C-alpha cells in the first residue's frame, strides 16, 4: 500500500531533522520502502501487515521509536466521555458490531482532512476487506445529539442527504444512484433491513458501510472535536480499525474520550481500549529462532525500538506489552520478527548453512532434457510459449473439440484457457514468424493440461514434446525419420510403431498415431490446408506431438 506524506509534516512529527537518505534507510529497515520523492511529497510503500503505518502519523510513530527518539509503549490516555450509543436488536446477521471514540482538539486544515480521509480509505480497503469487515465514519462531534442509535431500518424509510450531495435520497436510490452506493451496495443489498446510525434528534449520521450524511458527517477546517465510529462484522477487526484511526488523530494533538456501546443483550463495551495486550516469551525460544544470542536486556531494547513495552522477568522470560494498534501479532513468532527488526536486519550476520543433503533433478526433468538434446541434434530450434492460450486457437482453428481447462476471470480471451496440446501453440508461433528465414524447424518441451474428473485438482498435467517443420515444401517421410531417431534414442527401438490416423487437423492419408506397444503416445502428419488457412499460415507444415510419462519413465 502506498502512503503519500508531506516531507516537512513527516519530519515535524518525527521531531528530529534528518536527510532523505537517512529516512530512506530507516524505512527500509522497518519493512517500508520509499517509492518516489517529488518536491515536498514522498510516496512510501507500506506492507499490508502494518496497518498502523498507513498514515503519516503511523510512519512517524514507527520511525521515532526505531531511531530511539521516543521508545517503548506509547501512552494513549482515554477519558470517559459519558456518552452512549445504543445498538438495536436485529443487526446480528447484517452488521452487528460498532466501536466508537471521541477525539477532541484535533488539528485540522485542508491537507490534514485529506490525510484523515486517505487513512480511512486505506484501512477499510485492506483491513476492512473493502468495507465488508469494517468501515469507518468521522463526524462533527458537537453537532450530534447523544445518545446515538445504531439499528436496522427498512431501506425505503432511510432518507438523508449523502455527504457531498444536496438532495435527499432514500436507501434504494443511494444504492443505485450514488457512487459509493454502487461501489459498496452489495455488502448490504441482500438484507431486508439496512444498518443506520442516527442521533437522538433523528438526524442520520450514516448508512454504514456506504456513506455519511451531509448533516453530521461533513468535516471542515472548523471541526475540532471528532466522533469516530467503526462498524463491521468482526469485532476484533472493528476494534483494531478504531484504535489505528484514533491513535493517528491523537498523534495530531487530539485528546481521546471513550463512548459506552450498549448492546441489545445489555452488555456494555467501553471503546476505545488502549490497555496493551500482554505476552510472555522465553528468551531461549527467541534466540532459537533468530540465532542472534541476545540477552534479556538486548531483547527489551529491541522491542522498545519497535514500540512495544517490555520487561525482563526473573525466569529467563520477557513480558511484552503489545500496542492496541498492532493488528499483525497473532503468535509469538510475530513478536520475534519485530525483535529481529529492532535489532537491525543490517546487523544480522548470515550463518554458513550446515544442513547436509544430496540434491537431484526430478526424473521427468532428466527425460525432458534428453528429449531437448535430441531435438536440437535433429536441428530444431527450441521455443517457449505461455501455458495460457486461446480456445479459438486450440479448438476452432485446429478443427478439434478436445475439452479445455477454462478460467472464469481472464483479462483477455487470447489467454483464457490452459493449453491442452502443444501443437496449436507451435503452429501459431510459426504463423507469427512468416518474415523469418525458412526452413523453420521448431520444438517445445512443456506441460499441457487435460481435464480429468478423477484427479484431485481435476487435471492431468502431461509433459509433452511437439515439433513442426515449416518450409516451401515439406516431407512427411523425413519427419517420420526424425521422430524415429527421437524415439529410438529414448529407448523405444522395436517398441514403437506408426499407424494411420484419421484426424481433421491433418491431411487425410498423411497422418499417423505413434504407438508404444499398441498404446497411442502421440501423432504426426501434414497439417490440413483448412487449418493452415485458419491460422493464416501460408506455408506447408508437417508436425508431431508426443506425450511423455509424468514419472519420467516409460
Amino acid at each position, binding site marked *: 500500500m502506498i502512503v503519500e506524506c508531506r516531507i516537512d509534516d513527516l519530519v515535524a512529527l518525527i521531531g528530529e531533522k534528518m536527510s532523505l537518505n537517512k529516512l530512506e534507510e530507516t524505512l527500509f529497515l522497518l519493512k517500508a520502502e520509499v517509492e518516489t520523492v517529488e518536491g515536498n511529497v514522498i510516496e512510501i510503500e507500506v506492507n499490508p501487515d*502494518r496497518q498502523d503505518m498507513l498514515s503519516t502519523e503511523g510512519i512517524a510513530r514507527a520511525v521515532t521509536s526505531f531511531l530511539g527518539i521516543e521508545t517503548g509503549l506509547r501512552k494513549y490516555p482515554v477519558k470517559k466521555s459519558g456518552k452512549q450509543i445504543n445498538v438495536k436488536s436485529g443487526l446480528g446477521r447484517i452488521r452487528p458490531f460498532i466501536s466508537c471514540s471521541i477525539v477532541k482538539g484535533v488539528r485540522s486544515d485542508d491537507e490534514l482532512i485529506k490525510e484523515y480521509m486517505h487513512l480511512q480509505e486505506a484501512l477499510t480497503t485492506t483491513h476492512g*476487506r473493502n468495507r465488508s469487515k469494517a468501515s469507518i465514519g468521522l463526524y462533527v462531534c458537537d453537532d450530534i445529539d447523544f445518545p446515538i442509535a445504531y439499528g436496522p431500518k427498512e431501506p425505503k424509510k432511510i432518507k438523508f442527504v449523502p455527504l457531498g450531495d444536496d438532495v435527499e435520497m432514500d436507501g434504494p436510490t443511494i444504492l443505485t444512484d450514488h457512487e459509493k452506493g454502487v461501489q459498496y451496495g452489495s455488502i448490504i443489498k441482500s438484507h431486508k433491513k439496512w444498518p443506520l446510525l442516527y442521533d437522538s434528534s433523528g438526524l442520520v449520521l450514516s448508512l454504514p458501510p456506504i456513506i455519511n450524511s451531509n448533516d453530521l458527517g461533513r468535516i471542515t477546517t472548523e471541526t475540532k472535536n471528532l466522533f469516530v465510529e467503526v462498524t463491521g462484522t468482526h469485532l476484533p477487526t472493528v476494534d483494531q480499525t478504531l484504535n489505528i484511526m484514533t491513535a493517528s488523530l491523537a498523534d495530531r494533538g487530539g485528546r481521546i474520550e471513550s463512548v459506552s456501546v450498549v448492546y441489545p443483550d445489555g452488555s456494555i463495551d467501553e471503546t476505545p481500549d488502549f490497555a496493551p495486550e500482554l505476552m510472555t516469551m522465553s528468551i531461549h525460544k527467541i534466540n532459537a529462532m533468530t540465532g542472534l544470542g541476545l540477552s534479556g536486556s538486548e531483547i527489551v531494547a529491541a522491542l522498545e525500538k519497535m514500540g512495544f513495552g517490555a520487561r525482563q522477568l526473573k525466569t529467563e522470560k520477557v513480558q511484552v506489552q503489545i500496542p492496541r494498534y498492532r493488528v499483525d501479532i497473532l503468535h509469538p*513468532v510475530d513478536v520475534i520478527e519485530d525483535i529481529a527488526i529492532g535489532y537491525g536486519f543490517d546487523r544480522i550476520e*548470515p*550463518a554458513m548453512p550446515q544442513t547436509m*543433503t544430496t*540434491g537431484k533433478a*526430478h526424473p521427468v526433468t532428466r527425460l525432458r532434457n534428453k528429449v531437448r538434446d535430441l531435438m536440437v541434434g535433429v536441428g530444431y530450434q527450441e521455443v517457449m510459449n505461455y501455458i495460457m492460450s486461446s480456445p479459438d486457437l486450440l479448438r476452432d482453428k485446429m478443427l478439434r473439440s478436445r475439452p479445455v481447462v477454462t478460467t472464469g476471470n481472464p483479462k483477455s480471451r487470447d489467454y483464457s484457457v490452459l493449453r491442452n496440446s502443444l501443437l496449436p501453440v507451435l503452429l501459431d508461433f510459426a504463423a507469427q*514468424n512468416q518474415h523469418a528465414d525458412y526452413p*523453420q524447424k521448431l520444438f517445445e518441451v512443456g506441460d499441457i493440461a487435460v481435464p480429468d474428473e478423477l484427479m484431485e485438482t481435476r487435471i492431468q498435467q502431461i509433459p509433452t514434446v511437439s515439433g513442426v517443420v515449416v518450409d516451401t515444401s515439406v516431407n512427411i517421410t523425413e519427419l517420420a525419420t526424425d521422430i524415429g531417431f527421437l524415439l529410438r534414442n529414448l529407448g523405444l527401438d522395436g517398441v514403437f510403431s506408426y499407424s494411420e490416423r484419421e484426424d481433421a487437423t491433418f491431411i487425410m492419408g498423411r497422418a499417423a498415431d505413434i504407438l508404444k506397444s499398441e498404446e497411442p503416445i502421440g501423432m504426426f502428419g501434414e497439417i490440413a490446408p483448412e487449418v493452415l488457412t485458419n491460422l493464416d499460415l501460408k506455408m506447408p507444415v508437417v508436425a508431431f506431438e508426443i506425450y511423455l510419462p509424468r514419472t519420467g519413465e516409460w
Partner: protein
Amino acid sequence: MTEGEKAVLRALADQERRVTAAELAEMLGQKNMRVVSILNSLSQKGLASLEIREIASYTLTQEGTEYAENGLPEVRLFRAVLELGGKAKVDEAVAKSGLTPAAKGIAINWSRKNGWLGITKEDGTTVLEVKAEVPETPLEEVLSAISEGRRAIPEGLDSALEEAIERSLANTSMTKVFEAEVTREKRDMIDELLSKEIQGIVNLTSEMLSSESWRGKPFRPYNVELEPAYVNYGKKHPYAEFNDWLREIMIGLGFTEWFGPYVETEFWGHDTLFVPQDHVSREVQDQFRVVSPHDHGDILDDKYYKAVKAVHENGGDTGSKGWDWPFSKEVATRLCLRPHTTPVSMRYLYEHRESPQKMFIIDRNFRAEKLDATHGQEFDQCEGIIMDKDLTLRDLLGYLTSICKGVGIKKMKFKPGQFPFTEPSVETFAKHDKLGWIELGGSGIFRPEVTYPVGIKDTVLAWGIGSGRLYMAAMGINDIRDLFTRDLTWLRRSAFVA
C-alpha cells in the same frame, strides 16, 4: 586488400570473362550482397570494372512448359496430317496427334495462319491438307532456350520471343545484374598480386591419398579469416538454458527437485499456507479461478483438512489466535491456477516430514494481471525449502547468500518483509551492474500455523526467486513479454551465457 577482396578478385581473374555477381557468389559460397559490395570496392581501387545492367529474364508459363515438353500443338497437328497421307479429316488428325480438345482450336488456327495446312469442306466434314514441306517455326527454339534456363535468347529470334509472350507462353521480368571483369590494363599487376597463392591442390581427395599424388605439391591456401555466415541450426531457448543453469546450481547446493500441478485447490494454494480465506490475493482481480469443466476439486486427507481449518478458525494447537473467522470448505475446494510455487513446497513437506530436507522447484505460476511491459500473467519462480532442527534466521540469510553467490550476485542486502506464511520474512535485494538494486525475491521461516498441521515442529526455511527477473537482468531485457518472445529471428540470434 582484404581476404574477402582477394577471394573475389581471384575468382574473377580465373574466369577471364565478364561474370555476374550472382555467379561469383555461387562459386565462392557467399551472399550476393556481400560480393556486390566487394566488387564495388575492387572497382573503386581500379582493379575491376563493374557494370550494372537491367536485363530481362524469361520464364515459361504452364502452357509454355507443356509445349516445350510435348511440342507446339500446330506442329503436332501438321505431323499428324502428314502421317495420314497429307490429307485427313479434322477429327482423325486430332485423334492421331493426341491433342486435347482444348488445344484443337489453337492448333488449327496457328497451322493455318502459318500457311502449313489448308482447310476445306468435303461432304459436310472439315478436311485438312498439307501445304508446306516442313513446318518451320523459331518458336520451339525460343521455348527450349527458356526452359533450359539460358539467359540470352539466340540472335534472330526476337520476333519469335515476342510471339511467345503474346501467346502467353512466357513471362518477362526485369532484374538488376552486376557484371564485372578484371581491368585489362592491370591484368599483370593483378596476376602478380594473386600469383603467390594461385597454385596448388584445391580439394584433397580420397584418390590422391591412396595414390599419394599429393606428395611434393603445394595446397592452394583458402581464406580462413572470412566471417562465417549466420545459420539456423538447432539450439535451445536462452531462457530455458537459464533455468537449466539455475537448476544445476540448486542441485549443486543439495536441493532435490519436486513437482506440483498448475491447477490447485485453494486448500493447497492458500489455506495450508495460512492465507486467510478473505485475503485479497484470492480475489478475482488477483488470481485466476478455474470454472470449467470443473470448478472445485477434492481434499484427500480429512485429518489434515481439520487441522488446517482449526488453525484458521482459532489457531488450533499452535499457540496462535488464528483468523477468528469461519473456515469454508467451499472456498478450500475451489480451483485456481496456482499464483505461486509455494503449494509445491507444502505438498513436498506433506510427504517428507522428517528432517533434514532440501527441496526446490523452478516452474510456472499465474496472476490475473493484464499483460504489459512490467506485468506478466505467467512467471517462473525458483523456490525452495530447507527443513532441519535448530535452523535460525541467520541460517536463512546464509542460504540466501550462497544461492545469490551461486547465480553470480556478489552484493546483496536484506529487508524485513511480509508474507502470510512466513515469520520472520525477508526480502532480498541484489546489486546489478547496470540496473542497480533489484528485488530478487522473498523468503522467511514458515509459521507454526503452516508447519504444525502437517506435524512438523522443526524449522522450515522457505525462499523464492523470480527467475524471469534474474534472466531479464542477465540478458538486458526490459520488457517482460520478451521472456516468452514470439520473435524467431531474435531467438536464432540470442544466446544465454552464464
